[in-house]
């Protein structure tokens, strides 16, 4: 009988605060264990960005000037965003369709415990991914970085959390994994086109420049490019703050789509 009272008390406690560290860490730990079990996905997450950045370097190896120094940072900003968006939208969708989400929401779990748990786990993966990709770019491929290299990694992590947040959000609007993947061309490719990689942002037509100004990936790419050009970090922090703000907004939207009661 005692433990029943304890359970009831801990339920009251977790109902009072919007987030419980114990439950949040349990979610993060569980997601990481699942990833560890899925060796192929883990390998893709860690190795693929390194291969792609190397491919980019090789493409521009014979060209004049320092195109890689311009394009490389943009790719470093894009990869964690795209990959985490895909991984998260599919995993959360699986959680919704398998009934585990319904079970968790019938338990003393806050919506934020669930979302922040996911963000922590994928943020950690993104950190590992970025350390490798940035390490290879700077160490092996001679990417010139004027600013601090660790800040490059931080931008990548913020970017990955942004991808995670958006992925959580769109998973609410997809019934199948097929549909979830279709959200990528809708939400991600326009951001890639308008982030300043193909046409510098200031040279875009006015309307598109305005659109580019409200897309989070633009700020991530700006931050990366600034870091390679100058050692001044003030503006970089502003860009990081914008990306983090979008990520928080995405998590809030994601929380709004998690409903305990469904039809």
């Amino acid at each position, binding site marked *: *009988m005692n*433990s*029943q009272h*304890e*359970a*009831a008390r*801990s*339920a*009251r406690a*977790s*109902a009072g605060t919007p987030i419980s560290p*114990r*439950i949040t*860490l*349990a*979610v993060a*730990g*569980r997601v990481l*264990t*699942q990833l560890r*079990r*899925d060796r192929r996905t883990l390998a893709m997450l860690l190795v693929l960005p390194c291969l792609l950045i190397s491919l980019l370097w090789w493409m521009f190896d014979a060209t004049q000037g320092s195109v890689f120094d311009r394009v490389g940072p943009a790719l470093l900003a894009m990869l964690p965003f795209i990959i985490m968006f895909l991984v998260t939208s599919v995993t959360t969708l699986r959680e919704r369709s*398998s*009934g*585990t989400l*319904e*079970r*968790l*929401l*019938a*338990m*003393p*779990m806050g919506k934020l415990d669930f979302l922040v748990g996911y963000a922590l786990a994928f943020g950690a993966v993104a950190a590992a991914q970025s350390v490798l990709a940035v390490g290879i770019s700077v160490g092996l491929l001679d990417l010139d970085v004027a600013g601090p290299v660790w800040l490059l990694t931080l931008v990548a992590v913020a970017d990955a959390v942004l991808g995670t947040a958006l992925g959580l959000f769109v998973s609410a609007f997809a019934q199948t994994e097929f549909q979830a993947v279709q959200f990528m061309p809708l939400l991600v490719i326009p951001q890639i086109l308008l982030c300043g990689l193909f046409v510098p942002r200031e040279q875009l037509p006015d309307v598109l420049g305005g659109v580019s100004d409200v897309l989070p990936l633009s700020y991530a790419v700006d931050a990366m490019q600034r870091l390679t050009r100058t050692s001044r970090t003030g503006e970089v922090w502003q860009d990081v703050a914008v990306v983090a703000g979008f990520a928080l907004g995405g998590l809030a939207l994601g929380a709004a789509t998690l409903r*305990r*009661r*469904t*039809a």
Partner: protein
Amino acid sequence: MMKNAVEVHDLVVVRGGREVLRNLDITIGGGVTGLLGPSGCGKSTLMRALVGVQKLAGGGVRVLGEEAGSAGLRARIGYVTQASSVYDDLTVAENLLFFARVLGVDRSAVDRVVEAVDLASHRDQVVGRMSGGQRSRASLAVALLGTPGLLVLDEPTVGLDPVLRRDLWALFHRIADAGASVFVSSHVMDEAERCDRLLLMREGRIIADGSPDEIRRKTGSDDIESAFLAIVSEDAA
């Protein structure tokens, strides 16, 4: 000791424009209560309403003295959905440890529930590689973590070996004897005999309510299946 674990009053649920539950009034007390009816009759919807994950169109549900779905209740109800809701890519023990942490119960509970559903020899096996029956047992084990005052089990014995089915029903009765209310659904009529009390459901309404003996006597039938048929034809007349 409270009288009723569950009090459902004038409950209406609409799904996809169709009234799945119509003005339902039921109470569930102690012991093992069975909810029997053909698939699609609204059993799962009623169970979802009890655990507070179903949108209601009218009426109310009170569980253990609180409004169904209220935060204080969430640690006091054990719920098993019809699909085995465990993580396929984790082992049995990893699944249970995770849910134990969410519920805030001691990890020793994991060993207890693994024994209870007879999965001790499979505890380090990945759930996705187990049989359907083993998976639904792993899912059942999650609901037994903690010490729920109400256990809501949606078809927990589908496709299981008869020996194991008998053992699980014995387990449900032990849990009920220890003071919890157990609410089990099934579409297999021969499981009816194992319940203390039966609710027969058809098309969103309860058509009979009583102990298996009472229901058989009232209809003059030898088994619950023919009792069900007798009640349905009486209804139609």
